[in-house]
């Protein structure tokens, strides 16, 4: 609809076409709202272009190479050759397929697509600048807006991503050669996924991490399994050190680090990958023109309806803070669209699962035993180690366990920590159990296909009841 003669208008204006924004747009359009989606770069956002999808593609290829190189005991021997440029081309093909799919789905659902960079003019109007300089811009009036502008990699002093030897995760995921020596700064989930990948592809990987372990936020016995495996792949960890700088040498670069006490170390490398976290893309939106507030780190604060302090402007995804995960962004996007459509939607999810695609994978949801106790429950815990799982043995992947946490008096399932093969998939069943208000007995009584890894979820539940079959009960 045309409003005046300079500006067009829309019911719902969405800024950013990542998993928060494009999902919100499709759902809003499905609800019959006139919906406009503005994206300055590629459909699919960080996740599809330079995040979840490319990293998982590399992990598949790296796992295959590693697996087959170590399968002689299974009767399969091979010495695989790695062509990084081909791998990146394949990955680009996968990304293209998905991002063009997103574009098609938006169009099929009647979402108006607009290429350009949006900034707020006031609380009911954005300006969208098209392409480069002099390409013109337009104003769009909106009744509701959803900000879904995501996040970008944090830069640390002395490591400018513009410099060729310094990699952001985006650069790493566009590699055309496997670096002989790779220094990785940061042992969070992105750092660990990429360290493991490049180690499997043949890099000598050294990790520098300020804290004293990998994967902060995970329980010790979970992260230990991932660290041990990484070490067995030859990854060298240096904890308690912060990266301080780098310089070019005759053959490559040298990365320097410093402990809190000022002790210096240096590491030779071909590339240095900086993966120390991500910050919200809220500073370039001229939010002040709309009166939208952020917290002191720049995250837009929202309520359980995904509304910002300005009621008709919503924010979803990474720009709205933790958990900075694609599926959380999508869920928030759906809630935002439905709230705008006048439905009784809310972010009332009981549990948002999270996965780390290291070797082995981690899948977690809900509360740990300690958190359950802190929340006033009387936790009972059940475990099943994968080395007792027939399916795990037949795949050769037996590291890790399923742990399930329940409330003893009621039996309600409260959480699970899974580390091991397909942990990212296995967590789905426990997530559903939590959402449904299911009990340990419900999971234990449900027949699970043999032989599957999912049986370990059932066994962990039986173990919590003190009557597991394939483990000794505590």
């Amino acid at each position, binding site marked *: 609809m045309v409003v005046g003669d300079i500006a067009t208008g829309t019911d719902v204006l969405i800024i950013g076409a990542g998993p928060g924004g494009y999902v919100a747009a499709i759902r809003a359009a499905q609800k019959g709202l006139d919906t406009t989606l503005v994206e300055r770069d590629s459909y699919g956002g960080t996740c599809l272009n330079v995040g979840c999808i490319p990293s998982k593609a590399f992990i598949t290829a790296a796992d295959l190479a590693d697996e087959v190189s170590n399968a002689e005991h299974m009767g399969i021997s091979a010495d695989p050759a790695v062509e990084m440029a081909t791998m990146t081309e394949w990955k680009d093909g996968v990304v293209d397929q998905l991002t063009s799919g997103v574009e098609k789905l938006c169009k099929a659902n009647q979402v108006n697509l607009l290429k350009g960079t949006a900034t707020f003019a006031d609380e009911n109007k954005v300006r969208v600048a098209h392409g480069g300089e002099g390409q013109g811009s337009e104003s769009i009036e909106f009744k509701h807006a959803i900000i879904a502008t995501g996040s970008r990699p944090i830069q640390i002093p002395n490591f400018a991503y513009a410099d060729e030897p310094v990699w952001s995760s985006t650069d790493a995921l566009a590699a055309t050669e496997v670096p002989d020596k790779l220094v990785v700064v940061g042992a969070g989930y992105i750092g660990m996924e990429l360290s493991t990948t490049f180690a499997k592809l043949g890099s000598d990987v050294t990790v520098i991490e300020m804290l004293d372990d990998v994967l902060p936020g995970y329980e010790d016995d979970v992260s230990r399994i991932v660290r041990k495996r990484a070490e067995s792949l030859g990854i060298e960890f240096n904890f308690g050190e912060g990266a301080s700088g780098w310089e070019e040498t005759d053959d490559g670069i040298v990365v320097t680090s410093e402990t809190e006490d000022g002790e210096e170390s240096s590491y030779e490398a071909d590339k240095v990958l900086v993966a120390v976290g991500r910050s919200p893309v809220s500073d370039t939106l001229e939010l002040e023109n709309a009166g939208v507030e952020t917290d002191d780190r720049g995250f837009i604060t929202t309520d*359980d309806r995904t509304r910002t302090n300005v009621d008709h402007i919503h924010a979803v995804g990474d720009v709205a803070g933790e958990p900075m995960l694609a599926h959380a962004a999508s869920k928030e996007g759906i809630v935002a669209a439905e709230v705008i459509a006048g439905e*009784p*939607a*809310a*972010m*009332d*999810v*009981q549990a948002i699962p999270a996965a780390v695609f290291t070797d082995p994978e981690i899948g977690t949801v809900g509360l740990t035993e300690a958190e359950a106790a802190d*929340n006033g429950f009387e936790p009972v815990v059940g475990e099943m180690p994968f080395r007792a799982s027939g399916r795990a043995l037949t795949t050769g992947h037996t590291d890790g366990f399923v742990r399930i946490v329940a409330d003893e008096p*009621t*039996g*309600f399932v*409260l959480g699970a920590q899974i580390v091991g093969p397909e942990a990212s998939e296995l967590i789905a069943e426990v997530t559903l159990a939590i*959402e*449904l*208000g299911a*009990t340990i007995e*419900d999971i234990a009584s449900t027949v699970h296909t043999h032989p599957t890894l999912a049986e370990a979820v059932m066994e962990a539940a039986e173990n919590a009841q003190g009557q597991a079959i394939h483990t000794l009960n505590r």
Partner: protein
Amino acid sequence: DDTPETPGGRVFAPPAVRRLARELGVDIESVSGSGPSGRITEGDIRSKADGASAD
């Protein structure tokens, strides 16, 4: 805005039931569940809503 706030803590009710509570304007935290271990069911929400409108 008459839809109740979503509870801060755990609610032992399936998603469809939680949504129904908001739709009917029932504060789910004030409902005692009749399901296993006190799980809240669709029926619990509907009778609470009926009771409220009868008041």
